[in-house]
C-alpha cells in the first residue's frame, strides 16, 4: 500500500466511525486530523508512527463521541479475527460434544459387580457375566450356561461374509434371520468338554462345532449370507433359506423346506443314498444355489 492509500484508509475509517456527529463537524474533524498528520510529517515523523501514536481510528472516533456524551460504537474486529473466532468456537463445540457423547455412551468406564460376578467395561460395550457365562462385546453376544449346557449368542453378519459351520454328531436347524444378525442357540451334550468356537476372519465367520459332540443347534442366518455346512454324522434341516447353501455331509440327512416365492437351483450329489428326482432348477439371476453332497444318506425336499 502506498502512503496515500494508508492515509486515506485511516481517514475513511475515522469518518465512518464518527457516525452520529453531523456531516460538517465530521468534515472538520477529518480536516484537523489530516492537518495534524501533515504537521507531524513536516516535523520528520514517519506516517505509520504518526498513525500509531493517534491510535486506531475507531478508538479516536469513540473519544470524540465520549467527549460529546454520545454513545460509542463497537470497535470493529478484523474479519480474520471474526472467522478465527467462529472457526475456533465451532471446532471447540464439536470436540466438546463428541467428548461428552463418548463419555456418556461409554460410562461408566468400568463397573465391577463382585456379587453377581459381572464386569462391564465402557458403559456395557463389553459385558462379562460369570453367572450363565454370558459375554457381550459390542453387537456380539455369547451365552454359555454350564448347568444346562446351553450355548446361545448373536452377532451382526453382512452378506459380504460367508458363514462356515463345521460339526460332527450334531443336528442343525437353519432358518432365515429377520434382520442382519446371525443367531445361534445350541444345546450341548452333557459329556461334551468342548464349547463351540467362533472365529471371525476377513471374509468368513467360522462356527466350529466339530469338537462338540451331540450338539443340537438352531441357527438364524441373515438373507444372502452364503452358508457352508461341513459335517459327519448329523442332520441338517434348512427351513426356507433365503441364502445360498453348500452342504457336505458324511453319514446323515439333509432336509430342505423351500420358500415358495423363492427361486432355487439344485445341485445334489448322493453316494449311497437317495435324493428327490425331477427337481426343477430355475436358472434366473435371483435364484439361490442349493448345493448338497452326501455320502451315505438322504436328501429330502419339501414345499415344492
Amino acid at each position, binding site marked *: 500500500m502506498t502512503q496515500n492509500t494508508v492515509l486515506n484508509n485511516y481517514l475513511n475509517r475515522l469518518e465512518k466511525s464518527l457516525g452520529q456527529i453531523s456531516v460538517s463537524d465530521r468534515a472538520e474533524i477529518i480536516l484537523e486530523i489530516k492537518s495534524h498528520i501533515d504537521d507531524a510529517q513536516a516535523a520528520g515523523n514517519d506516517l505509520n508512527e504518526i498513525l500509531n501514536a493517534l491510535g486506531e481510528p475507531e478508538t479516536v472516533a469513540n473519544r470524540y463521541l465520549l467527549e*460529546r456524551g454520545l454513545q460509542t460504537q463497537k470497535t470493529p474486529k478484523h474479519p480474520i479475527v471474526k472467522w478465527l473466532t467462529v472457526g475456533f468456537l465451532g471446532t471447540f463445540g464439536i470436540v466438546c460434544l463428541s467428548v461428552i457423547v463418548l463419555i456418556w455412551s461409554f460410562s461408566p468406564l468400568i463397573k465391577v459387580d463382585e456379587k453377581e460376578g459381572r464386569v462391564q467395561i465402557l458403559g456395557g460395550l463389553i459385558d462379562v457375566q460369570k453367572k450363565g457365562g454370558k459375554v457381550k462385546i459390542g453387537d456380539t453376544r455369547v451365552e454359555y450356561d454350564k448347568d444346562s449346557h446351553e450355548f446361545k449368542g448373536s452377532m451382526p453378519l453382512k452378506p459380504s461374509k460367508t458363514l462356515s459351520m463345521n460339526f460332527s454328531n450334531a443336528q442343525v436347524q437353519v432358518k432365515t434371520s429377520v434382520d442382519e444378525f446371525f443367531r445361534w442357540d445350541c444345546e450341548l451334550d452333557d459329556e461334551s468338554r468342548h464349547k463351540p468356537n467362533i472365529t471371525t476372519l476377513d471374509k468368513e465367520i467360522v462356527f466350529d462345532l466339530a469338537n462338540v459332540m451331540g450338539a443340537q443347534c438352531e441357527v438364524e442366518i441373515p438373507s444372502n449370507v452364503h452358508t457352508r455346512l461341513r459335517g459327519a454324522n448329523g442332520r441338517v434341516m434348512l427351513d426356507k433359506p433365503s441364502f445360498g447353501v453348500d452342504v457336505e455331509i458324511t453319514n446323515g440327512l439333509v432336509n430342505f423346506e423351500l420358500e415358495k416365492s423363492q427361486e432355487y437351483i439344485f445341485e445334489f450329489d448322493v453316494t449311497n443314498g437317495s435324493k428327490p428326482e425331477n427337481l426343477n432348477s430355475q436358472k434366473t439371476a435371483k435364484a439361490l444355489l442349493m448345493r448338497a453332497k452326501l455320502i451315505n444318506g438322504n436328501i429330502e425336499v419339501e414345499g415344492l
Partner: protein
Amino acid sequence: MDELLKWKTQIRKGYLDLCILATVEAQGRVYGFDLIERLKRNGLEVKEGTLYPLLNRLGTEGLLKSEWEFRDDNKGHPRKFYSLTPKGMQLFRGMSEEFEKMYEVLKADKGEINDSKYGA
C-alpha cells in the same frame, strides 16, 4: 502503585483541561500539533488521540473558538487555530484560582503532612 495510577487518572482529566486552557491563554492562539509539542516540552505527555477530541469538546462547550488558517503561499496545509472565548477566559481564571488555592493548602500543611504517618 495502583492507587497512585488511579488517583493520577482521576486528577488528570481536570488538570489536562486547565493545562490546555493555560497554554492557549499564554500563546493567544495555537494549533493542535503546536499545542501537543508545547505540553510535551513542559513535561505533560498527552496522546494525539486524546487531545483532539478534548479540543473539540472545549469548542462545543464554547470555551474555545477556532479558525482555519490557510497559508499565504498556498503550498502548506491549513491549520486550525484555537483561542479562548470570553467564557473560556473566565473559566480559566476561575480554575487557576481554585488550583492556586489547593496548592496553597498543600504548601501550608506540608509540615503537618510530613509529620503524619501518611507522609513520605
